[in-house]
Structure formats: structure tokens, C-alpha cells
């Protein structure tokens, strides 16, 4: 996996090595991302100085960044899950002339070269719109939030809530914090199904964590029925992993927002290479189907995050359908 990371290989091809920090090791999505990093680096002819993992701890992230630069990384691809705490480090790196590409999140402060992300708020909005339409603007919906202390979870929750209040005021939303734990989601679902048996929709903020647990409960309660059945509960997931696609094909869930792990890896590294070659990003559409905009602190490459339903689930371009 770290074949490109051996010491002494730096500065191959005229550009320096890229240091990559993975944000966490216990999620399907980030594991897929991590899997794409070495292959995409090879495709781009980039050298990886080293790959570290900050296990969802911003202090470790900052330590890892120091470690990577100490080891000679000339550009960094990171994914700060805490967008507040990374600012000063970014300014320091900018001062040292080391460009930073932030994948998945946009830092609240500090300078960076490029943000590569699909908007987490957009996930929440897309899920809301899908459920709102399917439910005809009324009924009850349960939402499995992530950890309240996670920025991505919070963005999804807020956007989902905002959209629901604005566009579908007649829909009741039960927000269930879960700490990203499947059992907590299950217990919440059972409780809600007891108190409010007329729940008609589920939004789960992470398919990797909540998919199987949710299906397990619904199966036991005999609620896993086709959309034509009035007992059907509409489920929107979030991530875009292969298991979700399978479930969509089987009709167990209705949709998911595909968060493009492959594109995150590819364009994170792509922009790292651009940065090391001294390219200044240009605002506007790119040649890879996304748009670069200017944001406080730098630029942002907005990667599309398609909603996957039964209609487009077999699209080979979706990363969940690859390999």
C-alpha cells in the first residue's frame, strides 16, 4: 500500500513528495478513499512522502502535518474533520510555502491552496428534497445524525432541517444523535416506531454505519416492503458505497447521496501536483466536470455528489460500482 512511500524517493519527476493524512481509520468511506490514494498518485506520477492517519483527532492531525513536513513533504493533502482548529497551522504552512489541499471540508480560517469537496450541506438538502417529494410533503421522518461533535454530521443535519422547515413544514422530523453507533440508531428507531408507528421516512447520515442495523430492525418489524405497499418506509442514505447500491437494487432502500471517494483522492492529488508545479487555479468549470470557485482563504473545487436512486444505480461512473 505504501509502495511509493519509501524514503529516498523524494523529488521524483522534478516535483517534491506529497504528504497525505487520512482523517480516520474506522469508516468505509475513508477506507475507500485511502485505497484510491496510492493508485491515483501513481497515475499522476506523484511521489508520496508518507501517509499518516489522525484518527479523527485534530491534535494528531496537526502533529502529523508537522511530521510530514519534517520528512520533506512539499505539498499536503489533508481532510480536517475539525474545520475550526486547523486555521493557524494552515497559515504557518502558507508561510513556509507548502500548499495544502483540504479534502472534504473547508477550513474556517487560514490559507489553503484548494478545497476539494462535495458540499455536505448539499447532501442534507438532497436527502430532504427526495424524502419530501416521496412523502408528499407530510408525515413523520426520522434522522440518524452522526456525532454532534462532527462538522460533517452537523452540516448535513442543519441543511436537512433547514430544508424541511422551509419546504416541507408539514413533515415532522425526529432527530436522533447516534455518535455514529449502529446500536444507538437501532434503539432510537425502535423507540420511535413504538411511539410513532406512522413514520414514513428515514434519513441516515452514513450508510456504512447505519445501513445494516436499520434494515435489521425494519425486517424484524415486517416493514421492509416495496414502495407500492402503503407500509413502505422511504430511506435515504449517505455515502455511496457498494452495499447501499445493492440495497437500492433490491428495493430495500430508495436512495443515497454518493460522496465521491475516488474523485476526492484523484483531485486532491491532482491539485497537489498543480500546486507544486506552480499553477494558479482558475475560477470556472474544470475539465473534469466540476467547478472551481473562490472562497475565503483559497479556492474550492466543487465535486458533484449525485443522488443515486434505482434509476441511476447501475451507472458505471459511480465509484461504488468500481472494482
Amino acid at each position, binding site marked *: 500500500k505504501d509502495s511509493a512511500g519509501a524514503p529516498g524517493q523524494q523529488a521524483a519527476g522534478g516535483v517534491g513528495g506529497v504528504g497525505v493524512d487520512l482523517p480516520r*481509520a*474506522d469508516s468505509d468511506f475513508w477506507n475507500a478513499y485511502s485505497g484510491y490514494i496510492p493508485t491515483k498518485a501513481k497515475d499522476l506520477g506523484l511521489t508520496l512522502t508518507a501517509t499518516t492517519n489522525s484518527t479523527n483527532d485534530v491534535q494528531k492531525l496537526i502533529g502529523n502535518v508537522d511530521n510530514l513536513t519534517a520528512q520533506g513533504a512539499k505539498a499536503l493533502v489533508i481532510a480536517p474533520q475539525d474545520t475550526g482548529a486547523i486555521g493557524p497551522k494552515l497559515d504557518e504552512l502558507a508561510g513556509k510555502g507548502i500548499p495544502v489541499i483540504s479534502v472534504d471540508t473547508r477550513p474556517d480560517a487560514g490559507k489553503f491552496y484548494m478545497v476539494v469537496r462535495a458540499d455536505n450541506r448539499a447532501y442534507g438538502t438532497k436527502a430532504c428534497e427526495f424524502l419530501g417529494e416521496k412523502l408528499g410533503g407530510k408525515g413523520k421522518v426520522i434522522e440518524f445524525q452522526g456525532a454532534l461533535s462532527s462538522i460533517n454530521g452537523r452540516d448535513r443535519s442543519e441543511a436537512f432541517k433547514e430544508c424541511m422547515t422551509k419546504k416541507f413544514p408539514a413533515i415532522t422530523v425526529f432527530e436522533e444523535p447516534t*455518535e455514529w453507533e449502529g446500536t444507538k440508531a*437501532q434503539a432510537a428507531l425502535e423507540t420511535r416506531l*413504538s411511539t410513532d408507528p406512522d413514520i414514513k421516512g428515514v434519513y441516515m447520515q452514513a450508510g456504512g454505519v447505519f*445501513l445494516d442495523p436499520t434494515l*435489521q430492525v425494519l425486517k424484524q418489524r415486517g416493514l421492509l416492503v416495496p414502495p407500492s405497499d402503503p407500509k413502505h418506509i422511504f430511506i435515504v442514505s449517505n455515502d455511496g458505497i457498494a452495499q447501499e447500491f445493492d440495497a437500492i437494487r433490491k428495493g430495500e432502500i430508495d436512495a443515497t447521496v454518493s460522496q465521491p471517494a475516488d474523485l476526492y483522492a484523484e483531485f486532491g492529488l491532482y491539485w497537489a501536483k498543480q500546486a507544486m508545479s506552480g499553477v494558479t487555479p482558475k475560477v470556472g468549470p474544470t475539465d473534469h466536470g466540476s467547478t472551481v470557485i473562490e472562497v475565503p482563504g483559497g479556492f474550492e473545487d466543487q465535486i458533484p455528489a449525485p443522488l443515486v436512486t434505482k434509476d441511476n444505480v447501475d451507472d458505471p461512473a459511480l465509484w461504488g460500482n468500481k472494482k
Partner: protein
Amino acid sequence: MRLAKLRDLALIPPIIALLVYGYTLKPDIFLTHSYLVDSVLKYQAVLAMVVLAEALVLIVGKFDLSLESIVGIAPAVAIFLVVGNTSVLGAPWPTWTVLPVALVFGGLIGVFNGLLIVRFKLSAFIVTLAMLIFLRGLQLTLVGGSTISNLAKRVPVIDYLGNVRILTLPLSIWIVVVLFAVGIVVLGYTRVGRSLYAVGGNPDAARAAGIRVERVIWMTLVVAGLLAALAGLMMSAQLASVAANQGEGMIFMVFAAAVIGGISLDGGKGSLFGALCGVVLLGLIRSVLTLAQVAPDQIEAVYGLVILVALVLARLTSGKAQD
């Protein structure tokens, strides 16, 4: 030696109070069989199993932090060998191996802990802490951050543990009830069981009385490993998957339940019945807080506060100092 001494019953009043309070909140739902079983107790089953394991270890005067990681790693290893994308050790193995492999793996960890604690005379706290870190890491390496998912209908034991009901109660609850009953009988009415208290209370006296202290400790650690592995399978069955962080963070609640239930960290004290009451109490507090519509971002604070208040009340009413 009597089945329930006064101390063991200390938690009965707060449990009744919570039941009454829950009933006033939602009279139509709360005291129903389906709510109590499916929304409250079922999700405490895994915790109860690990509390059982930890209670035994605490009674014998030791400490086992690694149990929470066994909850994750034992099913992960067993299921990985069956459905994983690997050919080591002749995998894929037949699906019936899941149960024995998980148990053997859990037991082996107990053996290894015992080796370091009993033979090398290392501190149980630090040995099992290092073991916890190691096993968590191993779990990540193995599951590779990607949940082993979609296990329903592929691994029979998972289906049984997850779906079978006997006399309307889920199998997992039966397992807990039976194992606690067995535990209570063994601890109260067999020489081996009583020797746990003797070893935990005064190992020198136990040794002088002819009890093989080291063997008893070692055996307890192995049994705890087995129980934790079974708990892990139960959790995987509930979720129909093995998450990369399965069990993580659970050990705090395990200790909380055991200690609230009257098990002493100093060894030689406490009863399994009390520990079980501790588990039920924690489960009820959480579910009542949910029913009471405490705001999601305040529920944790209220939870901690309620535990503190419960402790002080128990202290004031029982008049006994704790340790």
C-alpha cells in the same frame, strides 16, 4: 450467600421510580411488552453480557479493559474467515465455524492476558489497556475500516442471535437471563464461584486455604474473554454487520453499570444481580430521557447528572459508604 442481600436490592427503588416516571410520560406505550423488550432491554443485552464478564473479573480482584475490544475483534476474526476476501488459513471457512472461532479467539485473549498478569505478574490494568489498544488496531487492520456488512442470511449464527424469538423474547435476552442465572448460581453455590470472592478479597488467605489463586484468576479471565466474544456476536447479529469500531467506548458504561450495581473495584465484593440491576438502570435512564424529549445536545449532560444524583441518593438512603 442469600440470593439477594440488601445491598443488591439498592437499585430496585430507582428502577421502579423510573418505570413510574416513564409511564406517566407515555402511558400508552411505556409499560408495554414491546416497548420494554424491543426498545429498552434488547439494546442492553450486549452491555449486560460484557458487564457479566467484567463483574467476574472485578470480583476476582482484577481489571479487564480489553473486553470492549474483544466485543469487536472476536466476531470480526470469525466472520472474516468465513466471508472475508482472503485465503489465509484456507479461508473461506464454513459458516458454522463462526461461533466456535469467535469464542476460541475471545478465550485465547483471556489466556494471553492471564499469562501476562498471572505468570509475569504485570499490572492487570496496564496489560489489558495495551491489549485494548492492540486489538483495536488489529480490528482496524482486519476490517480495514470497511464494515463487514450484510451478514443477515449469510451466517446462520448471526441470524439466530439476531432474529430468533422464544416466547416473544429475543434470543439475546434469553442468553443474558440464562447466563446471569448460571452466573448467580455458580458464584453463590459452587466452590469455584465462592473462591472468586475469596481470591478477590484476600488472595493470601485464599492461597492458605488451598485455593489455587493463580488458576482461579486465569480461568476467570478466560471466561470473561469467552463472554465478551459472545457479546460481540450478539452485537454483530443485532447490526447484521461488524463495524470497524464495534464495541469502542463501551468499557466506560460497563464499569459504570458494574460499580453502580455494587461491584467493588477492590475485588471480592458485589453480586451479579446487582450488576444486572445497574445495566437495567442505565438503560431505563437513557430511554426515559429520550421519551422525555430532552434536547439531543443536552441528553448526555442530563444523563451524567442523573447518574450523579442517583449515586448521591443511593448513598444517602443506604447510609453505606462506597468503595
